[in-house]
């Protein structure tokens, strides 16, 4: 069955990132990319950001152009402390 529950985490992350971009699209242009990056840095746990970078490398990843632009300013996750 094609239920919402079976959406993969990757699909969800793309969706969430684009949702954030949608909001900042309406904000003043010069701050938008930085604001998207800032938001993701603030709220996304490292493994989510890692998955995000994996997605970013794929062709046709479905990411909004603003998200792609913001990616430069999104922090690369470091190793998990043991």
């Amino acid at each position, binding site marked *: 069955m094609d*239920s*919402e*529950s079976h*959406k993969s*985490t990757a699909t*969800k992350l793309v969706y*969430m990132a684009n*949702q*954030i971009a*949608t*909001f900042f*699209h*309406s*904000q*003043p242009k010069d701050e938008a990319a930085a604001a998207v990056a800032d*938001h993701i*840095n*603030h*709220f*996304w*746990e*490292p*493994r*989510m950001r890692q998955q995000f970078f994996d997605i970013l490398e794929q062709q046709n990843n479905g990411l909004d152009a603003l998200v792609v632009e913001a990616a430069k300013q999104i922090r690369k*996750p*470091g190793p*998990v*402390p*043991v």
Partner: protein
Amino acid sequence: MSLVHEIDYGTPASLSEKMVTLTIDGSEVTVPEGTSLMRAAMEAGIQVPKLCATDMVDAFGSCRLCLIEIEGRNGTPASCTTPAMEGLVVHTQTKRLKDIRKGVMELYISDHPLDCLTCAANGDCELQDMAGAVGLRDVRYGYEGDNHVFAKNEGVSNDRWMPKDESNPYFTYDPAKCIVCSRCVRACEEVQGTFALTIEGRGFSSRVSPGMHEHFLDSECVSCGACVQACPTATLTEKSVIQIGQPEHSKVTTCAYCGVGCSFKAEMRGEEVVRMVPYKDGKANRGHSCVKGRFAYGYSTHKDRILNPMVREKITDPWREVSWEEAYKHVANEFRRIQYQYGRNSVGGITSSRCTNEETFLVQKLIRAGFGNNNVDTCARVCHSPTGYGLKTTFGTSAGTQDFDSVEHTDVVMVIGANPTDGHPVFASRLKKRLRKGAKLIVVDPRRIDLVRSPHISAAQHLQLRPGTNVAVVTSLAHVIVTEGLFDEKFIRERCDWEEFQDWASFVSSPEHSPEAIEELTGVNPQTLREAARLFATGGNGAIYYGLGVTEHSQGSTTVMAIANLAMATGNIGRKGVGVNPLRGQNNVQGSCDMGSFPHELPGYRHVSDESTRDIFDKLWGVKIQDEPGLRIPNMLDAAVDGTFKGIYIQGEDILQSDPDTKHVAAGLEAMECVVVHDLFLNETANYAHVFLPGSTFLEKDGTFTNAERRINRVRKVMSPLNGYADWEVTQNLAKAMGLNWNYTHPSQVMDEIALTTPSFAGVTYDLLEKEGSVQWPCNEKAPLGTPIMHINGFARGKGKFIRTEYVATDERTGPRFPLLLTTGRILSQYNVGAQTRRTDNVMWHEEDRLEIHAHDAENRGIRDGDWVKINSRSGETTLRALITDRVSPGVVYTTFHHPTTQANVITTDFSDWATNCPEYKVTAVQVGASNGPSDWQVQYDEQARQSRRIKVLDAAE
């Protein structure tokens, strides 16, 4: 231990600032102008006999017991209705007065049963007290004549006699004992605002009656109990008092249900609660309460409570009772094993917005210091996280701006996406009182909530928008205010960034945001919208109150910012009577957020990436807190399904029932290797748990709750925990089992640690709370007694920030397959997932969740009122019974989510707020059709739940 006594001044306090001085029985007393002589006397310590007056309601002057004499005036006026004036000389006890009072009492007693010894009110009856006070020694009239006391007079049935009404589960009405003082009627009108009671008949034949001679349960009565509290006799009496007897000691504590945070006296006999009486000094509720707080505490001793810890290897096994030690050891070993195997970040926890601040603080401390990660979240995620984000961005702090008293100074109230009469009843009563005195009301809600039209109240405007279009409507209100030049330029120039304002003003002014342009989208009449905007901007003090109908949307945070914009643009911030007021759902939503329950924030809303904040905790706790945000609840579940998140400790929340997209939650929990549920009952989440730790109720522990107005209220222990330990002790023991060296012996020490580490709590101690009753944070050097109103001389962030709020339609759209929009809410008698209220007599008001549907939509589908209907969405399907109503518009259906069998969240989707992931509960595209009974999922789920709740009985041989 003794009873907490409150003085009854007889009439309400006067708010006048002008003082007058007079002499009563030889003592001089100074009181505000407008104070009654009765109250003035009481202030001087002189108690004038009275029956029909009490200080919760206005004086009525009917019993004639409180007469006094005034020098230079004729007659004997009633002290409850005569105002104090400069220079009066008053006598409360003269021969003439004594004779009149005796006569009055004689008449009362002659129509009152004399069964005092066996009466439930014995020892707590004002009629009895007054008979004593006036020195009544004999009654000349017998019972032979007309009376209301006996069913039969000399063998003939007595028409005046009425049987007891025992229909309400919590109190009885015995008309034989009524003295027709009308205190109950006035309490219902003035305090509660329901107008359920009347005095039926005239003169001697008059009697109190709910509605048109109905039973209490069938009447408009909402069982708030204000009338019971007001009744001076045993006429209206709590059934618990009838059963148990009069209390012998009491303690002041705080309701554990909703975010109003009402103060109560828990009146006890030993460790048994006799009754809960709202506390007049409670600054949130001022002596009032609703049916939940006053009456629905029976769950605390319900037989379903689990009192022993339990463990099982697989969730398909039956539960096995174990010792506490074994349970702690099991959890500690499992979490350590999982972390060793899958990494440090593979476990986490959820704090409860029902537990105390101290308990919440300890759970997040256990996770950050013990688990060594930031994977902590709270169920506030699913309700008010957008408030945090939105208000922090615009004002600089995520808290509501006012105290509840503020509503008394409001001229225009805008209620958006909230249903106060059901969700926040005591605040609703206070709001209605203000509305009856003339304040104007604007309601923005898809459904015609009770407030829109209730006795003596009618909303000036109801913007009945389509679910999901809040941003468009609120932005359009701003459009009207800006384009018609109704904004408060002086305020904006002084307090906000003028350039940002201009940018925002040009954004909202654009024609596509006009009421006419959005009508098709929102369904709101443009003229109504314009008038609402004008009223709000020009009607005087404007206050906005909002609830989950704002936050639980994919644009929840955007709406919160739009609301903040509106308040700033109209200058409605920073004084009494105005402000932005989020109505919080659960009792300690505010507190759980304050205490660092979010994965990105340490206590006091400081981001984990902030080194100086981490440093405070690192030093005190001797650890190194990670500088990266942790997982939020939905992310934890995603990670669980992906196999990187394996263990969770859940205190006092039922995520399986309360979170959206049940199937996904279930899949996440199922994928974990150690789920620990710490709760009162085997809740729905516990069906997926490996360890169950029994929880304790608010009656069984000390601590604090923080209500929607940031008020820190004490919770006081009145009975020993049935399960043996308060929740904070369980968390501490678990921490110890994991090797942490915690040694708290009382929750006050946890509060000391909170104060030490968190600037907005720096001044809070249990001693201060003992002295002040309660304080509102920030409470520190700058505000030693707390802060009732925020942003008085400027915003917490400096300048208020205007933000553009573009409407974006949710992706949850209607279409041919799912043509209707489902929105959800709650009702008065039940609370959240209903785990507690379903275990009390409150079920008499709400046996099941019903689907509200407009007659037009019902007819198209051949559905009649009461039919079983099937409701499906992209996520799933469930069944419930239909209720045909015109409260919702065609195209919109509505239900509550209090009962697990309904499984309303099987149909809600995983769409969520863009900024906070707060789920979009308030909009789901659905189809509704006739059905024969429970869905497959419901049947399957019931079976699984039944299997999962089995507890293995150890037989004697083992």
